[in-house]
């Protein structure tokens, strides 16, 4: 790579945003940008995926629109969201330098099974919302029913938030509080963050 001429520089999406950690007047919804993560788009036949077990620690056995989160084993910090009958988004909260090793691990574990695996780590960023009003804040832009029955812990789906397409994950609760992870394209990052922050302030001001 060092032989190539540098033609562009990857900048942090939130560079020069001064209110990124501005305290909101809504104490019941905390909004934060998640740490950089590795992400892979995986497409493969559903039957083959069920037989594949846990390639590189990612559990592919879940039903459509659900999330598997490995927290307590060697594959800690790995999320797999099944977005459709033959599509998964795999997220690993590890250092960016592990991308090639993780890709190799996945490819080795999947073996001869026909699949496509694409590194989309830098396409997305994630914003996390937690607190008792987190669902209310999300519902200012997302029409899904986010009640505990319709959207319990372990749910993940592609959907819309205002003008942006997102992948919404309901992760394991933090204490008693819900935790939502919103994945969006990095070019929507500032828009999403500003929209969520403004919504949190509006809802907080109303309470």
């Amino acid at each position, binding site marked *: 790579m060092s032989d190539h001429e540098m033609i562009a520089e990857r900048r942090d999406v939130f560079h020069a945003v001064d209110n990124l950690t501005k305290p909101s007047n809504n104490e019941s919804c905390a909004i934060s940008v998640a740490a950089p993560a590795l992400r892979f788009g995986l497409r493969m036949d559903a039957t083959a995926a069920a037989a594949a077990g846990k390639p590189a620690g990612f559990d592919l056995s879940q039903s*459509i629109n659900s999330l598997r989160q490995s927290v307590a084993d060697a594959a800690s910090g790995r999320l797999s969201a099944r*977005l*459709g*009958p033959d599509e998964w988004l795999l997220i690993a909260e590890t250092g960016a330098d592990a991308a090639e090793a993780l890709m190799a691990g996945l490819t080795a574990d999947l073996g001869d099974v026909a699949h496509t695996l694409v590194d989309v780590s830098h396409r997305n960023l994630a914003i996390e919302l937690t607190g008792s009003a987190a669902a209310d804040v999300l519902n200012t832009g997302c*029409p899904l029913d986010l009640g505990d029955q319709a959207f319990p812990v372990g749910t993940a*789906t*592609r*959907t819309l938030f205002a003008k942006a397409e997102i992948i919404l994950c309901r992760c394991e609760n933090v204490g008693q509080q819900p935790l939502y992870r919103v994945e969006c394209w990095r070019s929507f990052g500032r828009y999403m963050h500003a929209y969520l922050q403004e919504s949190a302030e509006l809802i907080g001001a109303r309470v």
Partner: protein
Amino acid sequence: MLLIKCPHCGERPEIEFHCGGEAHIARPLDPSQLDDVQWAELLFYRANTKGVMAERWNHLHGCQRWFNALRNTVSDKILRTYMMGEPRPYIGGEAQGAATGTLSYPAPGERSK
């Protein structure tokens, strides 16, 4: 907002979906054998049904899969959704379509030229 039942995801808000026009239009196995009239009919002529119509829909901002839906074009009510590849269902005493059970208008080439 309407709720549309994706066969994979269940009921979801309509803004997640995109309509792909009339369903069950068989593509010719050998397009080079069609003359200009037949080709034009395949591409541009649609039943434009007033009433129950079978349409292709895509769950664009969801699972992104295509499926079929029976929609009443008068009331905009979606009566049933079903998987790609399944035959068009006829429900509630609705008149059967053409003998094939799919096309409700002449197949390409059967229309008078």
